[in-house]
């Protein structure tokens, strides 16, 4: 078993006058790590909450492993949604919380949970309401990873953690994914640190799907040109420039859109390197006001 697939078709969630999700159609392959990106308020949390059965969609269809997740005992039990701030028994010690999750989570690995507590330096005797924001996020990560649920969502859970803890999380996530492949969705608006983890990506903007694509395909929608400033400027004139970074005589310019063979040839002869575009740059470009 390598996780469950998720299919949404014209999914909409409305709150009174707000369209939190509108016409969302995506497919997440079983066993993949998927990036759900979007600015604050773009609908990421609403989408994950709906898939996890926390709310009912207003319209459209949503299937997890071919079944509507809402109030499905089988499907809801296979999904683990970790939200920032955590859904834990706040006035019980961490060890009691882990015991609770061991009882309710079908694939819980108690030994691994202990290892993770040590990795994040969390005392099992501490209560979640006494933890700092970062420690609470780490507790969420412990629960999310040790649950080993076929579908695991981390909803911006790593944002509260400091840099060393975040990188520990990425390493642990990847190592555990390799050993126990499953469907993992990471949602974030901080992309640069995690973009290498994604196989596929969805970018949400104002509740709508802006991009739903393979990560490599997405990166090929732009390019970064690095080389002597004058040569780079010459090459990119007329192209859609996303960002420019100057490092003395060297300049790095990120452009949106494919590069033709002629431009690539000219770049080679001008000693300008062409690299992949960063997802962060693309994301900023695609979700910025001017693009919309």
């Amino acid at each position, binding site marked *: 078993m390598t996780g469950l697939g998720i299919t949404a078709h014209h999914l909409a969630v409305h709150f009174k006058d707000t369209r939190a999700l509108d016409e969302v159609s995506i497919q997440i392959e079983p066993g993949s790590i998927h990036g759900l990106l979007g600015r604050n308020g773009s609908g990421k949390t609403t989408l994950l909450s709906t898939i996890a059965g926390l709310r009912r969609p207003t319209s459209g269809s949503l299937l997890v492993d071919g079944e509507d997740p809402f109030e499905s*005992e089988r499907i*809801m039990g296979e999904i683990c949604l970790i*939200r920032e701030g955590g859904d834990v028994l706040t006035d019980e010690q961490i060890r009691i919380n882990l015991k*609770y999750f061991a009882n*309710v989570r079908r*694939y819980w690995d108690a030994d691994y949970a202990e290892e993770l507590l040590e990795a994040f330096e969390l005392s099992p005797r501490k209560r979640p309401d006494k933890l700092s924001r970062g420690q609470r996020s780490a507790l969420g990560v412990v629960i999310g990873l040790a649950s080993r649920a076929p579908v695991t969502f981390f909803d911006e859970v790593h944002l509260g953690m400091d840099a060393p803890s975040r990188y520990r999380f990425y390493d642990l996530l990847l190592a555990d994914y390799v050993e126990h492949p499953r469907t993992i969705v990471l949602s974030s608006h901080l992309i640069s640190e995690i973009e290498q983890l994604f196989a596929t990506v969805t970018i949400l903007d104002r509740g709508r799907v802006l991009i739903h694509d393979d990560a490599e395909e997405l990166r090929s929608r732009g390019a970064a040109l690095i080389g002597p400033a004058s040569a780079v400027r010459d090459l990119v004139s007329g192209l859609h420039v996303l960002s420019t970074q100057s490092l003395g005589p060297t300049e790095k310019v990120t452009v949106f859109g494919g590069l033709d063979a002629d431009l690539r040839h000219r770049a080679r002869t001008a000693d300008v390197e062409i690299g992949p575009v960063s997802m962060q740059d693309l994301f900023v470009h695609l979700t910025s006001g001017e693009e919309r």
Partner: protein
Amino acid sequence: MTTPTTHRPTWLTATKTLIQAHLRLAVWFWAVLALILVGAHVLMSGVIPTRVLIAQYGTHGSTWFPFTLAIIFVLAYLPVHVTSGMTRRSFIRANLATALLMGPAYGAGLFLLAAVERTVFPEAPVPFDQQQVFGSSGLWGLLVGQALLSTTGIVCGLLVGIAYYRLHALLATLLLIPTVGPVLVVVALTASDAPIQQWLGLPTGTGWAVGAAAVVIALAALAFHLITRTIPIKAVE
């Protein structure tokens, strides 16, 4: 993927969690009630020159304390339950099972305190007999009446909690009349002077009152089920 462990039905797991949480605090409640009882009789032995039975006054605490716990637990536990991969259906079932088990437990607790008190002071009278739960039926009446009252208290606590979770605070406050109302109805049904039965011209027997109270509890439970079965789980604050 890790091999799944065998689990009992989720509602049973949730019931166990809720019962444990209720019991842990109920022990404190009964300990405090026993201390108050002892303290009052010590006073009656010296300072106040009278001796009456007072354990039955514990009916108020035994009704409203679990009511309060039910409000707290429904607010704190609902998001944890559903985000842990369990359905609202199992949450409803677990909470109602807890009410059906803990209600009689509170009845039994009060029954025990009253029984001990009556054994120690067999000559002492019961004051304000009219206020006693099923006063004319003696200790067994107290057990049954309190079980009904505490069960109703817990179910109404669930209703109040879920109303505050689902609705605007102002609306939930306005709805306190129907959400707390069932407790007041059962208080009246189990009162010795049977005011509701007399007012409606119904028989005043204990059996009738138990039946009517059971109907009230069932209706409150149904309301809790209807409000909770599709409730959206809010975002973390």
